[in-house]
């Protein structure tokens, strides 16, 4: 059936510049381009274009411009072009609309309504080029207090992981992303001294050498789990939910389950890998407690166990329950968190901005006097180092980045990850495409990103007259809100600018 949808983007080619080299044709995984040999002309099917910009940046003569298609429906504030297109697509297909990456709706971005403090004369700023600036962060349960007994300082032996910088790579499974990306993340985490997270798709053997920098997930699908998987890693994460699609599970279509993925996930080749929304052995907080302890038992209490939930309306109460159930680390993933594939309607309408959820959870845990029992990690829409600094001042110990890391590898947020045709070789298992990420170059890009952000965090620390990230954690006095209502300032626990 020919679709009745307007093409979203226009491909504008400058015929004077085009040399018919056919790079665009080879680069485009969405079949936009083909070559008309008779006329020695490149032709395009604009309706296939997703604006991934692979062609335009690789065109040797800069002959291509991809821009929004300006054909338009009659303007209507209620029936936007997006809502009309979505409805028509569903009328044509009868299915749930899928999408990739995080929520792109103009929800209020609280990071952009928060300003940081800087020292002036009474408290000197510190020059990070001359003075030590400490970013090291330790995740795991902390003792409530230390004791001296018989002249000895008694130190409870809680397991932990150390990060050289409070930035980790969030869960992205092998299967959702290509092997080369997965490897780049593992290598970069190792080089920087932080953690990468295998996600729910198992952990290839040859990458186990990066174990001290690896978090393994135990998700509802239980893919790739065995004792070695847990024991080779530095930390175990139970995934309950993720910000892009709270309350639903995941699905890796059978055609992506290659020999290597089948081996890694421990499932038959070509079979669909379905992770259900609930863990079928967790229907209560007590059940979660049992899994937390089962994993601790399996790893001889040597690995911290984290529990990841998406930011939902009663996240503070849930987080409190999770801490009491023995979680050493709580991860909260906000509404802007990315994903390989999610029903669009969920991605855009379910969950909470991470800023509010994080502040509410930190406050709740402190009110209950149990903030020391677990570290707090937040994720979902972290875009730059100031977002990280603000997150820590609101109460996080560290953050996960996902989309931002993929961008370092080339992603342009075209939101077509669920098609498996990622032209940048990131969210695809097509060997032709996935070669586009060179793991060595990818590693370097990720290392560069973390280095750059860490330097910036040091600058922000220095300007606040602080030389250790620990003194920023939960230090909401370093923040002021602007353009926020009283209730928002109240949830964030910060003062308004000028107060």
């Amino acid at each position, binding site marked *: 059936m020919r679709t009745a949808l307007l093409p979203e983007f226009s491909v504008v080619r400058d015929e004077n510049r085009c040399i018919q080299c056919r790079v665009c044709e080879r680069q485009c995984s969405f079949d936009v381009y083909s070559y008309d040999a008779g006329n020695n002309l490149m032709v395009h099917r604009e309706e296939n274009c997703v604006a991934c910009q692979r062609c335009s940046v690789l065109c040797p003569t800069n002959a291509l411009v991809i821009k929004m298609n300006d054909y338009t429906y009659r303007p209507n504030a209620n029936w936007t072009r997006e809502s009309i297109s979505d409805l028509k697509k569903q009328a044509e297909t009868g299915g749930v609309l899928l999408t990739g990456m995080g929520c792109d709706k103009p929800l209020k971005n609280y990071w952009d309504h928060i300003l940081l403090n800087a020292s002036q004369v*009474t408290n000197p700023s*510190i020059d990070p080029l001359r003075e030590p600036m400490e970013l090291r962060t330790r995740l795991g349960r902390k003792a409530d207090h230390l004791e001296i007994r018989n002249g000895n300082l008694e130190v409870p032996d809680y397991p932990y992981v150390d990060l050289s910088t409070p930035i980790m790579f969030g869960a992205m499974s092998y299967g959702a992303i290509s092997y080369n990306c997965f490897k780049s993340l593992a290598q970069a985490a190792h080089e920087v001294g932080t953690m990468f997270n295998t996600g729910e798709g198992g952990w290839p053997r040859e990458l186990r050498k990066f174990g001290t920098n690896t978090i393994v997930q135990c998700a509802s699908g239980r893919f790739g789990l065995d004792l070695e998987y847990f024991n080779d890693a530095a930390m175990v994460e139970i995934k309950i939910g993720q910000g892009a699609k709270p309350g639903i599970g995941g699905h890796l279509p059978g055609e992506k389950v290659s020999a290597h993925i089948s081996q890694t996930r421990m499932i038959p080749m070509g079979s669909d890998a379905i992770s259900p929304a609930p863990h079928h052995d967790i229907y209560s907080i007590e059940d979660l407690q049992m899994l937390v302890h089962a994993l601790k038992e399996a790893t001889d209490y040597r690995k911290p166990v984290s529990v990841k939930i998406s930011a939902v309306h009663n996240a503070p109460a849930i987080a409190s329950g999770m801490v009491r159930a023995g979680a050493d680390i709580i991860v909260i993933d906000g509404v802007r968190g990315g994903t390989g594939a999610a029903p669009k309607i969920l991605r855009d309408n379910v969950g909470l901005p991470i800023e509010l959820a994080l502040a509410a959870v930190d406050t709740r845990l402190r009110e209950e*006097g149990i903030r020391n029992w677990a570290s707090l990690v937040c994720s979902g829409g972290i875009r730059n180092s100031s977002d990280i600094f603000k997150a820590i001042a609101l109460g996080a110990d560290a953050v996960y980045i996902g989309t931002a890391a993929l961008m370092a590898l080339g992603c342009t947020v075209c939101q077509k990850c669920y098609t498996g045709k990622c032209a940048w070789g990131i969210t695809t298992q097509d060997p032709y495409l996935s070669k586009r990420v060179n793991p060595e170059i990818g590693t370097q890009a990720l290392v560069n990103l973390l280095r750059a952000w860490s330097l910036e965090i040091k600058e922000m620390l220095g300007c606040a007259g602080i030389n250790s990230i620990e003194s920023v954690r939960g*230090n909401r*006095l*370093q923040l002021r809100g602007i353009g926020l209502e009283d209730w928002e300032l109240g949830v964030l626990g910060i003062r308004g600018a000028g107060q």
Partner: protein
Amino acid sequence: MKNLSRVNNPYNDDKVISQCSIFGMMNTSGKLISGMQCITAITNMHERGNGLGAGFAIYGIYPDRPDDYALHIMFDTKISREETETYLKRLFDISFAEEVPIFPTESIINPPYIYRYFVHPKLKDTHEIVDEDDLVTRRVFKINTSIEGAFVFSSGKNMGVFKGVGFPEEIAQFFGLEHYRGYIWTSHGRFPTNTQGWWGGAHPLSLLDWTVVHNGEISSYGANRRFLEMYGYVCTMQTDTEVVAYAVDLLERKHGLPIEVVMDIFSPPVWEQIDRMNSGDRKYFEAIRNTYGSLLLNGPFAIIVAHHGEMIAHTDRIRLRPMVAGIKGDTVYASSEESAIRLVCPELDKVWIPTGGHPVIARLKGTEGHDVVEGGREIPGTIVMEV
């Protein structure tokens, strides 16, 4: 937050930024000495303050009532005094009460009413068995947060804080401090840069017999405060120095840690140094940074912390505020400026600038350890508990 007007912070600022001069002296034999040296020395650093706050803490001043908690309370009005006294009578046995003698001076304008009460907490109102110190602490917080116009600014035994708005010499004159004798004297001349002075916010800041005078600004205040709040401390005096007093109380009194460990918590070595240590030291510092990372004091500070038996002079680990220590016989001095020490004791046995992050600890003779140590931390052997 209630408004105590004269005795409180008129701008309701969370943190009052102050610079200042600090001076402390201790007779390690426990001999009671007059305050003249201390008053002279702090007065010599007049230029470091701006007349918006000064104060003294003196240990050993109430030898006749050594076991009573001496509550020094400021009142804004007679009504606030009556209300507080009703509360005190209900929850404390009061053995003696009086208005603190004052000697009005021209420059001290509009002071609050200042009384002292020698008390013991009554236990009968509580169902739980609690430590007396905890009860006093709790009730002090209660008065400070809920009785309009009343402010407890000193609550230890056989010691007292005297403070207010003025230069140190004026405050000393106002309270007639030359009439008091103590074996530790600490003092403060204040330079708050962005608020009017207010009586409650002058230093020393105290809780029970812990007192702190401070020069600097604590940029980790927000983190320190939120950590202390988890342990029931209510920050009512709205100054960054307050967190130091409460942190010392939490760590030394409640968690039973020696003062050397407390100072290591406030300004531990950086992680890179810790990484290079032997395994015993490394475990020790890892443990304290792990557990008490939120009590690391960041920003520039020089503090003199005192309690019965000890006076500790300490600066931040990159030493952004001045501190000089000196010894003459059995007297130990700590000061923002050497000139202040030299003025009252020209011939010193030893004078030196302590290393940043290394506390100078003066102790009463006869107590464990040497009477003066610098950074003389004996690292307790760490043992790892199975959990």
